[in-house]
């Protein structure tokens, strides 16, 4: 069911509406799973994934997906940063505000604050939450799940996605403004799933993640299935201190020779930096140790002291029992 949860009249143009889709098996569900995408206007994989999930859940609700039944409640918020999505940019130029730094928001505040408050209110009674995003501006991420609170329930939930990589995020001075943090504060088991790069729709990546999200719905008991559950067991979990960042020491044009998501051995070449004017190679980047290449620079223009790649290293990952 599509529902308008906030209408924002425009000064001169059409009214912009914040919508959610929801499906529920009963009036008092034990489980509520909220899935949010479009927090930034350039994160297109999440929009696509949520549209596929919506079609699938409509089919489940109307009996066309006979292997699945609704058990709890699922709600999907496909577009959060309405104006940024409409303008095709990461941020909305009107306020230059990062919407994921606008939580908890304010019902009586400016547009971004109203949206943030509305999303938080409509997800407050959730038991589980997923934010679908991409790599940061200029970066590509291997499909992976991130969490702030690596408790057993959340780790199990992440495992159900069937991704190779799950990582814990470090707390930062801006974390208290993020949706993920506020969900955590409300004891909602929550994940951010990052896939691909901004400004690009990668259907192959999304299609591979779609099954994982359906599996997560089954795992959290928002859906039930007559088919066999297939939780992946060989998932690599990394603690927040398991990051290794490769930085440029010069500036130029970066070309990569690896793919995000690869497992690299110490010494494997990541790519090289060339001088824009001469074409000469300025420096080569290699993996400083064995690890998963979780984030790779995709925009070639590179300043000095910028991250080229982030590797997740098992040496520091510690033991995460299930």
């Amino acid at each position: 069911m599509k529902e308008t949860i906030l209408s924002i009249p425009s000064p001169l143009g059409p009214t912009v509406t914040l919508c959610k889709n929801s499906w529920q098996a009963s009036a008092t569900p034990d489980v509520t799973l909220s899935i949010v995408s479009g927090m930034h206007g350039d994160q297109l994989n999440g929009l696509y994934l949520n549209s596929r999930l919506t079609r699938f859940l409509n089919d489940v609700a109307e009996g066309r997906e006979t292997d699945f039944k609704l058990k709890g409640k699922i709600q999907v918020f496909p577009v959060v940063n309405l104006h940024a999505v409409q303008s095709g940019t990461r941020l909305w130029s009107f306020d230059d505000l990062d919407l994921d730094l606008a939580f908890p928001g304010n019902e009586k505040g400016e547009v971004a604050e109203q949206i943030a408050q509305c999303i938080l209110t409509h997800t407050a009674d959730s038991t589980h939450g997923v934010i679908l995003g991409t790599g940061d501006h200029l970066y590509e991420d291997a499909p992976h799940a991130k969490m702030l609170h690596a408790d057993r329930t959340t780790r199990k939930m992440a495992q159900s996605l069937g991704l190779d990589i799950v990582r814990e995020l470090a707390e930062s001075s801006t974390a208290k403004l993020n949706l993920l943090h506020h969900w955590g504060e409300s004891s909602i088991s929550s994940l951010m799933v990052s896939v691909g790069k901004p400004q690009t729709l990668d259907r192959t990546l999304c299609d591979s993640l779609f099954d994982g999200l359906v599996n997560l719905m089954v795992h959290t008991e928002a859906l039930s299935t007559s088919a066999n559950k297939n939780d992946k067991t060989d998932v690599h979990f990394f603690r927040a201190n398991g990051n290794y960042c490769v930085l440029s020491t010069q500036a130029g044009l970066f070309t990569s020779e690896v793919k995000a998501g690869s497992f690299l051995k110490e010494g494997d070449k990541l790519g090289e930096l060339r001088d824009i004017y001469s074409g000469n190679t300025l420096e080569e980047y290699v993996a400083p140790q064995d690890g998963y290449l979780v984030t790779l620079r995709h925009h070639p223009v590179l300043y000095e002291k910028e991250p080229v790649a982030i590797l997740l290293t098992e040496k520091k990952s510690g033991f995460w029992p299930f």
Partner: protein
Amino acid sequence: MKTYTIASYQSPLGGPVEIIKQTFTAVKDKPVKRIAFVSGLHGDELEGVFICHRLTEYLRQLKETHSQAFLGEVNVYPAVNPQALGAASRLWPFFSVDMNRQMGNGNGASLAAGFSNALLDDLKSSSDIVVDFHASNLHLKELPQIRIIEEFGKKLIPLASLCNTDLIWVHPTAPVFEATLGYNLNRAKIPTLVVETGICLRIHPDFCDQVFKGMLNLLHNTGILNLPDPPEVKPPLLVNPRQVALIQAEHSGLFVSSIPLGSWVKKGEKLGDIVDAVNGTVMETIVSTADGLLFTLREQPVIYQGAPLARIALKETTQP
């Protein structure tokens, strides 16, 4: 005046991008105090850059004519976000990040976080007092004011009272401040005043002159400069959140103000209209909700429901 580069990075197109610090040393080896003036964290906020220009110009002349006036050390950082200033944009272009949300721990290994924290570290190591100049965003115009987070009030209010602003606004803390320069310096026990004046992309010479005089007075009264003839300054209004009335739009439309910023207004007095330009109607007449000083006024007319239009410092405010 000595010029230092406190942080730099190479651009892909050549020359380095640098944060410059201009240092005016004390006459004696050990300065009584060290003060830093910072501007341009947001690259479209030019009022502070102009105030830093006025300070550097003045201090250079003073050094030549009365070098013995320098009992303390003065450091001026006039353009700390050089590429954003070059593009006149609030955000650091290319990365689209706000440099004043990068301070403190845990913001990753990005160039923006590294560069921002290099500035923070330099200020921590070479300042006893910091003044961080900001203008308002694109939307609002502000009378010269200093904003202080409650927990730092005891230390900061006496210093802020010297700065010739119209207002000192003491407000509760919020998570949004935790990644800012001012908050991180104050937490590190370096008293830091965040000055807010005017609006971005413009220079108001009268506001800048007012703050410039306040800075000279601050330098004189903290013993950093011994000025023979310090400027006369006025005491500010001191307000807490209960003493500030915020007026917000109930409709989306175009806001057209009808009263100048800085006016003393009466409750019920008209401040402006919100108009529907498509239908040629007035949707809402905005009136003051209290008697007091109009210290914030909407300048950018395009508004959405909920947008702040004006702030009024209530008349019964106290002086520090």
